[in-house]
């Protein structure tokens, strides 16, 4: 089983920040997230996702109504971790696809091949208003566009062949420009010429995850490498991707036995893994690390904690070939 961890403020419980064990300032410095990810990594958790939205969190005085940019936070954590995958949520509705793909490629470079992203849309009026360029659109429309963004991101990651940088002193050429490709991408809402500004990322394609939070998102998840499925009895069977089920957990109160049973049940149902949403990062992640993972390992459900290598390798995804190699384009 794949095991993932969600990072969101002080935890999934809106009151988690009030605990005496929490220094709320550490939400804003990134220290709280860093500590949780490092604990999870040491225990063998495979990846961490970072929640984000384009617009600010809801303005509710007793909740964490602030949020760091997930990409910046994941990058801040990258050099201080070695094995865990890092997947910030990045929204694509009001942002520039060219920047988005360059950022994800860069996260893959700075993390040595542990980068990915949770591709998400912004369908709300609040998100549209902070950018002010497009009217809000329904989920069907924003997810349709998101599929084009995922597609062009992979093309742009391929727009540099792996061996494009030749550093050939004899001819004075730094790159072989035959190995750089114009993607010439056209979609109903944007066009991109290419190539990318960033050389091909270490994993070829950083891991693209989609949270199947709506029927439209589930449809788009057909393009993902990794699907985050909300806790649900209805498991889709048609997906050509890894499927992990997101569950909110509070093992510091509930213990881990019930959770082990849930995960065994998911494994029996053919699910690829579980995406844990701890109620409190400070209270629950240590229990996940010290008690849950060892029990899953005892039952042969998870691999050794120390596995290195790329995130794709860790998840059993191959390194993708390059769609432009030998294409003549």
């Amino acid at each position: 089983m794949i095991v993932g961890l969600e990072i969101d403020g002080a935890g999934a419980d809106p009151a988690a920040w009030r605990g005496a064990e929490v220094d709320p300032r550490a939400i804003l410095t990134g220290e709280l997230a860093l500590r949780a990810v490092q604990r999870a990594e040491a225990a063998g958790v495979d990846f961490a996702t970072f929640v984000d939205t384009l617009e600010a969190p809801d303005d509710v005085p007793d909740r964490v109504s602030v949020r760091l940019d997930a990409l910046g936070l994941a990058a801040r954590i990258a050099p201080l971790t070695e094995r865990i995958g890092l997947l910030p949520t990045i929204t694509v509705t009001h942002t520039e696809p060219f920047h988005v793909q360059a950022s994800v490629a860069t996260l893959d470079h700075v993390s040595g091949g542990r980068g990915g992203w949770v591709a998400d849309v912004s369908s709300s009026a609040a998100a549209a208003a902070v950018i002010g360029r497009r009217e809000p659109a329904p989920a069907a429309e924003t997810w349709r566009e998101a599929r084009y963004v995922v597609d062009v991101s992979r093309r742009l990651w391929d727009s540099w062949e792996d061996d494009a940088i030749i550093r050939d002193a004899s001819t004075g050429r730094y790159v072989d420009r035959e190995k750089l490709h114009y993607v010439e991408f056209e979609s109903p809402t944007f066009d991109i010429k290419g190539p990318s500004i960033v050389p091909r990322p270490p994993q070829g394609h950083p891991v693209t995850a989609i949270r199947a939070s709506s029927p439209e998102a589930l449809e788009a998840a057909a393009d993902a490498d990794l699907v985050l499925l909300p806790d649900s009895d209805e498991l889709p069977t048609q997906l050509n991707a890894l499927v992990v089920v997101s569950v909110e957990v509070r093992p510091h109160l509930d213990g881990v036995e019930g959770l082990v049973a849930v995960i065994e049940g998911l494994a029996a149902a053919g699910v690829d893994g579980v995406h844990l949403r701890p109620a409190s990062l400070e209270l629950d992640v240590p229990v996940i690390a010290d008690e849950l993972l060892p029990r899953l390992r005892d039952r042969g459900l998870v691999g050794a904690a120390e596995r290195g290598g790329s995130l794709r390798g860790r998840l059993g995804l191959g390194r993708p070939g390059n769609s432009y190699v030998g294409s003549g384009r």
Partner: protein
Amino acid sequence: MSKQIHLAAHFPGVNNTTVWADPQAGSQIEFGSFRHLAETAERGTFDFFFLAEGLRLREVKGKIHDLDVVGRPESLTVLSALAAVTSHLGLAATVNSTFNEPYELAKRLSTLDHVSGGRAAWNVVTSWDAFTGENFRRGGYLDKADRYVRAQESLRIVRKLWDSWTEDQLVLDQAAGAFAREGAGAFADEGAHFDIRGRFGLPPSPQGRPVIIQAGDSDQGREFAASDADVIFSRHGTFEAGKTFYKDVKARLSKYGRTEDSLKIMPAVTVVVADTDDEAIDKAAYIREQQVSGPTALVLAELLWGRDLSAYDPDGPLPAEDPVVGSSVTQGRVGYNDPFPVVAEWRAQAEAHGWSLRQTVINQQNRQTFIGSPTTVAEAVNHHVQEDAADGFVLVPHLTPTGLDDFVDRVVPLLRERGVFRDEYGGTTLRDHLGLQV
């Protein structure tokens, strides 16, 4: 007391200053290279580390330019990662205001400032060309004349978002269950380029406002810097040109109610250090030859002439034709507004010295700013600063990632001995290092 010098490290970029073919040259993309240079700069108690930006690969005559470094990672992501492995060094990102939206910029830069403990800076650049626009949703939509209007409006809104929380709105009272006051971060703005409203989801970062850097050189650009910037990244590294620029820009500050020390002028410079002055002169000449191969000389001449010069021999004489203004032979880099006087100067120098085209480029374009023994360089750097040709410098090394090792190990101690450069960081934020108020 003597003026204190400010120093920054520029990661080697995609022009021919960077000698990628040297056996010592390392990766331009691996994080280890960025980390090495940043750690070197921090060891040298530099003010900040600087990353340039690229949004489209350069082209010459319709093909991707392949003679210089091509490609780079995205700046803010690299700097967020460097925040983890440095503790005091400022982290400056060049980010285009034309192809980014103020809300996103404010959020990403504020995040960098929060996670770095107050070390973020934004070098505000603009572009307008359709060539770059081909990679973006909106294309090359902006008029050249409008780019500073958008940049200025963009910066004004970014600051408004950074200022959108008052200090007392972040409550963090766990017992009472009050995280923040309702309404904190609310904003609305309507201008020529933006019409936005909502709530900004980050309270004031350690610096309040990240440092603003500006690099434009036109009259409009200088005015923008005088009204809005904390630092100017200038191209005027030589003594006389530096003094003229310094005087010009500092004189513009008073009309914005600003003092002269509220804007630091830091020209980009190159440095060659060796045991003796003679050795440094030889080393500098060798580096220039590495920087300007025959094909590179032609490409640089094409940028100046605005013509296809592929029929010329770089080891032969300069082209006889007149330059063309506004050509598209070279795409993706800044050309010459008025190439005629430059061409005339090149011709005069070539004739006087009997130089070939390549030798002319080597001598006219790539001469390093400071060349000499550690003592010579330290004295020259200090002289420029004390005589108001600069407040400090952005050092552009020719080698990735070890190009500043010599400067930090051999020149910085001499500046410290002279009492004109810090022994250790006195504060924790970039504003502290630069001596800037919010």
